[in-house]
């Protein structure tokens, strides 16, 4: 046996004192030959810790206004796209539609724009939704701990913030304008959220910017740090791969399906109790295949444009260019026949409805779980 093979085999053994070394071994090129046993181990750990269940959630985009310029994101300030910020009534319609579909766990998402997406706006949104949605989380621009406290009081249970890339140089290149430029401010966000009382913290890295192994190792280190420092929080990890979006950014690096599988399984083996999230960015066959391998939380039937579930907010659509409202390009036939909607953050790949997704989960021998939190605990 080669020495690297021995390292991988040791990493597959159940107890390991150096988690990061174990993780590095499991995502190494030498471990590829062991992919099947890595996946088997990951599957059995997941079933033991989480059971044969998959939790479901849906993102609800509130606004695609944004003051940041992030080269890879469709919502970037400079992109000439159709934008809208949903009103309280629009938000209610969208959430009602999601609960009709079965969702009891909704993630509120918005671009970063203090004028349109103020903390007061978010707080009011949470307060009205908590009356009929059992579980609410936020994925919005980072805030101070005292602002987060208001969000928790208003009913938010989880906070999601992806570092995007842990490669500082790449981070600077990708984030050219807006408060998101500050790497450390973003990196410390989960701790501020924890301090404010959030119970679930979601972190992640965007794959397609920097070398995937280096990125994954940094994400693992961040996970290990948060497990120690935010010991009461339930952590979830995401591994979004860059998707086509407005602005036509081309990914700089590639994470193959096979490597994604290796990555998910390595996270599961090294962090047995951490939730692993899979969104509709990924295509249906890959999502089906990943269900038994370590994933515990999935979205389904997602829309990444505000108003996407019901068409709410259409009358307020406007186009902006470099942050300024400009007349809408009348040439668009979509616009002419009233079919236009706000621009999405990225294109989704798995377009199955929540019902179809739930059926698929059942067919794979798992129970789709819609509700696993009750806001009554905090009221």
């Amino acid at each position, binding site marked *: 046996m080669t020495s690297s093979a021995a390292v991988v085999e040791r990493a597959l053994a159940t107890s390991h004192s150096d988690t990061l070394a174990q993780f590095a071994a499991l995502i190494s090129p030498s471990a590829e030959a062991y992919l099947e046993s890595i996946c088997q181990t990951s599957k059995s750990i997941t*079933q*033991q*810790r*989480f*059971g*044969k*269940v998959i939790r479901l959630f849906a993102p609800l985009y509130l606004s695609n206004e944004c003051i940041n310029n992030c080269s890879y994101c469709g919502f970037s300030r400079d992109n000439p796209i159709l934008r809208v910020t949903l009103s309280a009534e629009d938000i209610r319609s969208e959430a009602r539609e999601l609960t009709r579909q*079965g969702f*009891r766990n909704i993630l509120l998402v918005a671009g970063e724009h203090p004028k349109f997406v103020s903390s007061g706006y978010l707080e009011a949104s949470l307060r009205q939704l908590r009356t009929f949605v*059992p579980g609410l989380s936020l994925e919005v621009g980072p805030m101070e701990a005292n602002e987060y406290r208001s969000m928790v009081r208003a009913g938010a249970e989880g906070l999601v913030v992806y570092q995007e890339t842990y490669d500082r140089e790449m981070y600077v290149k990708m984030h050219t304008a807006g408060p998101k430029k500050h790497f450390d401010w973003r990196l410390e966000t989960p701790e501020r959220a924890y301090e404010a009382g959030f*119970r679930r913290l979601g972190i992640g890295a965007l794959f397609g910017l920097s070398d995937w192994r280096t990125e994954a190792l940094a994400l693992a280190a961040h996970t290990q740090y948060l*497990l120690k420092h935010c*010991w*009461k*929080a*339930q*952590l979830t990890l995401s591994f979004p791969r860059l998707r086509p979006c407005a602005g036509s950014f081309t990914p700089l690096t590639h994470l193959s399906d096979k490597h994604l599988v290796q990555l998910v399984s390595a996270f599961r083996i090294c962090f047995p*109790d951490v939730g692993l999230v899979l969104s509709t960015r990924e295509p249906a066959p890959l999502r089906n295949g990943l269900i038994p391998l370590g994933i515990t939380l999935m979205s389904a039937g997602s829309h990444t444009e505000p108003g996407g579930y019901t068409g709410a907010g259409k009358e307020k659509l406007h186009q902006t260019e470099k942050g300024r409202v400009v007349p809408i390009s009348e040439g668009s036939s979509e616009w002419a026949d009233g079919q236009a909607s706000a621009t999405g953050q990225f294109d989704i790949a798995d377009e199955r409805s929540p019902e179809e997704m739930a059926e698929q989960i*059942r067919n794979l*021998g*798992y*129970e789709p*779980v*819609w*509700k*696993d*939190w*009750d806001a*009554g*605990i*905090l*009221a």
Partner: protein
Amino acid sequence: MTESKESFLQIADRRFQSRLLAGTGKFASPETMRDALAASGTEIVTVALRRADLSGNRDPFANILEFIDPQKYLLLPNTSGAMDADEAVRLARLAVAAGLPKWVKLEIHPDPRYLLPDPIETLKAAEVLVKEGFTVLPYINADPVLAKRLQEVGTATVMPLGSPIGSNQGIATRDQIRIIIEQAQVPVVVDAGIGAPSHAAEAMELGADAVLINTAMAVCEDPVKMARAFCKAVEAGREAFEIGVGVVSRTARATSPLTAFLEAS
């Protein structure tokens, strides 16, 4: 002790034939769960309130309770998800308001990784809930002093863990559980970590009044068969305890003792 006294489990004012309590998490489908519960012979079934519909609207997307027949089982709401005493008390009250029994399996585990119970918050919550008239079954680490303190407060059982929830590690806290049983004035239910029927039998042989099983039944190839296996193991362990399990000795004990001649003379 007479056989009639030992042949049932009594918790508060209720008597049960089965000494197996069952959990309802982690099953691949609610139908599998229902069938496994039936096969286990259990009469007490615990459900996490955060997964149930407490609004009274019979939510089809949170309908776990509809698979548990209240005529057949005592439904034991649990406070899993609560991180402190206040939250656990609130959950227990919500359950009663939703029409569930005034019984509660008190679980407060702030650490989502090992799900180890917080002794301080558990004691606080038990005090409040007992005063409010709840029948309280607290999940605790295998800490004999805490077990005594909870009994003084008036809990109906104590439920020490064998090892962390879902870990299948068995009765790793054997020596502490032995002390808890020796000192107990209420039934001792060994909860958590029981990964195989042999672990359940071991707990019963030690003198536990009952065990609670979940992961080991829910996550296996055939939950119904496994439930049956656990049912038998619990019965076997109990019977052995009632008879008195042979003492473990480091030396051989001759069946024809060397000192027999003394009796003969």
